[in-house]
């Protein structure tokens, strides 16, 4: 990397940090319990809007994994999400009615919270419909993973977004509050992912899965990116660059081995496709606040009229992380 490139990337990073600093004024604290955060605590950062029904299980899942404190940005929910979270002892909540899109799809807000509270903590940035799995997650808490990453001097951990879907039409199995969404959306695509490398930021660009197979089969370039780096040993100099797909400085994006080996990685089980999805897509389409002029939601909307079945004969039913490891969607690396 030449000096000029280094300078440009540095400028880009400072620009993101500057935006984060400026946008912090949009966040109004609802309940700030951040002083409860202890030195080695694992923190979770989430932006949400009207996700009340998902929250109880979301919190339960991550509490079990060993997340110590949750920091939420509520983007103007009207379904009681904010009030529910404000009542939880391990949650801090900020709210804003500002534009999601103009906050770079929430990343400016999250970057600010990370800068302010995430410094020198292991920080997990996830959406309410994303469930983090990592090697040995059934027997070892997240603290074990973080300690191991510390011992190996690794600062960022990759977890690819794995779209989960139910068998049959989305509306067939209604989701009940507190239920494990994986009971309904337990199917995934095992081997239709395409990968290319972004040389500028050093990250991989992964596409594929049911969304590309069903919604973007005529224009694959527009299919959503699935590469994610949600777990980072944060420093206040870092910034998420494009959602949680990539970070700056770009060394953090080197979560893959270039010389034939495998680094350790996990997966984010993405349970977007529940019966709640139709209404959500409708709303997001009207708001037009999502990436690429919400083209993803336009594509969904077109197909959703038919209440589609994402399931196919070769869909794989989710069992556990070992299955994902064997299928080659994630890896233990040298963690044993």
């Amino acid at each position: 990397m030449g000096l000029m490139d280094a300078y440009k990337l540095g400028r880009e990073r400072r620009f993101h940090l500057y935006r984060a600093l400026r946008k912090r004024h949009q966040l109004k604290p609802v309940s700030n319990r951040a002083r409860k955060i202890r030195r080695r605590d694992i923190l979770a950062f989430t932006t949400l809007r009207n996700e009340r029904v998902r929250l109880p299980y979301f919190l339960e899942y991550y509490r079990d994994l060993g997340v110590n404190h949750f920091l939420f940005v509520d983007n103007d929910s009207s379904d009681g999400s904010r009030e529910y979270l404000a009542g939880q002892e391990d949650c801090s909540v900020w709210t804003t009615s500002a534009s999601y899109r103009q906050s770079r799809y929430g990343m400016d807000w999250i970057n600010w919270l990370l800068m302010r509270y995430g410094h020198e903590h292991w920080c997990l940035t996830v959406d309410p419909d994303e469930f983090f799995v990592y090697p040995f997650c059934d027997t070892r808490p997240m603290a074990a993973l973080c300690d191991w990453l510390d011992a190996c001097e690794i600062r960022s951990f990759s977890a690819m977004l794995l779209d989960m879907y139910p068998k049959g039409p989305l509306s067939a199995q209604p989701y009940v509050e507190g239920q494990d969404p994986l009971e309904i959306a337990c199917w995934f695509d095992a081997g239709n992912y395409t990968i290319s490398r972004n040389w500028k930021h050093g990250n991989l660009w992964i596409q594929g899965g049911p969304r590309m197979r069903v919604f973007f089969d005529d224009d694959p370039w527009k299919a959503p990116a699935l590469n994610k780096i949600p777990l980072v040993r944060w420093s206040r100099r870092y910034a998420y660059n494009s959602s949680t797909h990539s970070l700056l400085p770009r060394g953090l994006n080197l979560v893959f081995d270039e010389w034939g080996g495998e680094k350790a990685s996990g997966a984010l089980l993405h349970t977007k496709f529940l019966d709640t999805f139709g209404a959500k897509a409708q709303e997001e389409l009207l708001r037009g606040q999502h990436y690429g002029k919400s083209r993803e939601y336009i594509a969904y909307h077109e197909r959703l009229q038919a209440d589609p079945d994402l399931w196919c004969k070769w869909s794989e039913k989710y069992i556990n992380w070992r299955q994902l490891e064997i299928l080659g969607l994630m890896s233990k690396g040298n963690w044993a």
Partner: protein
Amino acid sequence: MSVGIVMLVHTALGRAEQVARHWAAAGCPVVIHVDAKVSDRRYKAFREALSDVALIRFSSRHVCTWGAWGIVAATQDACEMLLGDHAEVQHVFLSSGSCLPLRPVDELKTYLAARPRTDFIESATTADVPWTVGGLDEERFTLRFPFSWKTQRRAFDRYVEFQRKLGFRRRIPDGVVPHMGSQWWCLTRQTLQAILTDPQRAEYDRYFRKVWIPDESYFQTLARKHSTHVESRSLTLSKFDFQGKPHIFYDDHLQLLRRSDCFVARKIWPHANRLYRVFLTDAEGAMKRREPNPGKIDRIFSTASERRTRGRTGLYMQSRFPREGWEGGLTGARYSVFQGFTELFEDFEAWLSRTAGCRVHGQIFGPGDAEFSGGQQVINGALTAKAALRDHSPRTFLTNLIWNTRGERQCFQYSPRANQAVAWDMAKDGNAHVSVIAGAWAVPLFRTRRPFEEIRREAARLQRIEHEFLDALRSPWAKARAQIWSMAEVVEAPSEALQASIDEMGLRTARRLPELPEMRDLTGFGAFLQSLKNQGMHPYLMGDFPAEVDEPAQDEEPDDKPRRPYMVKK
């Protein structure tokens, strides 16, 4: 007769306390060294907590940095204290705060009592082992290392380079041969005493102070000088990964650790509550006199290191994305590619799948959607036949297909009409087996009814493309096993090409093919080629066909009677 424990502690003091109590409860005197980097407040609290146990003492504190002398100095002090205070100690066991005894202490005592003169210390000469981190083996004894490897890496490397250029060498003290090995040992009183009271100790200390990672070489070297019986292995189960960092044990390793029959394991994750609970309370059970057997644990950790450094060939994913040339093979399993066969033979795919008993696809790289076997729209791994998705990344499509169907041999058709983006990938892939009947692309052209000018243009295009593919297969970079025939050769002796392709797949042991696919009717093909030539477009890949309207011998047979296969003797 007893065994004394020296513990080097720097973190997880709570766990260290638990383990120290465990040793002391079994009657082993313990001397603990706490890293000087631990704050005085925590150190005091730690001492306070253990003040009720008479057998536990604390030695003077040194700063312990990885790869530096402090650890050796700390060990020396602690050992002197232990040997001075406890005349009954026969063996001294060096352990760390993250070590965990796996077998009852009495078993360790019995084991050592039965071997009163044996020193358990892993110790090998530098020339014979490839353990080193940072590429330094013998040089760690002959160069100087004033800079930290961890925090001043650049200065460290430059200074090493500088000394190499100057040809600088330190003198190794007389009477010692440098050895190295695991830091965790168990030495007899005699050997340890001899090392600590050696008249040359001041000289040795001065020398080793500047050696890189002296904790892995000081005692290992000097034990060779003083010991009467060195058993070169460590009683502490400790495994290192490819970067020289110790593997960590968790609760889910419980059964493995139990079955290993090792005395002590490191390093244990401080929050592995179950391991600490089980191994520090479970004194029950009959006395086992088995030898330690860490084989299974070895295997698990070496597989993990292998996974990290070599990975799974043919897999491309979020944490394995090799640079070009570093894949260790583009694909993970063998597959066969046939070009020109479906053009020349009727129903070739069905015949192939009958004969070879493997999965036979049609033209998966187009034109149009992929023709998966059985006309499926989606196959293994939810890989779809859609042309747009395939052409989005053809190489990934190929590697995905082979990865998803691993364990089952794949065959597919290819042609100059298909997406050529993967041509070079297949040619360079050692797993590919490519059979080509050159020039067979002309058969469909010959059978169409299109304006001749169009056919001529198409023929020229296809010939150019196939020529490039054949060049790739014949290039010095090609690793695929390629078999190329001209169409004329195959028409002359069809069974030869078919037999050779099937043999190459190595699936069937049958000496000869039971049946052959039927060749398409080529009456007038020679004339067709001639008219192309007359138009100025010379088809050369298919070999020579007589220009006259020929009457091949096989055509004399009635249509309803299939041709009999025959074998060409080599």
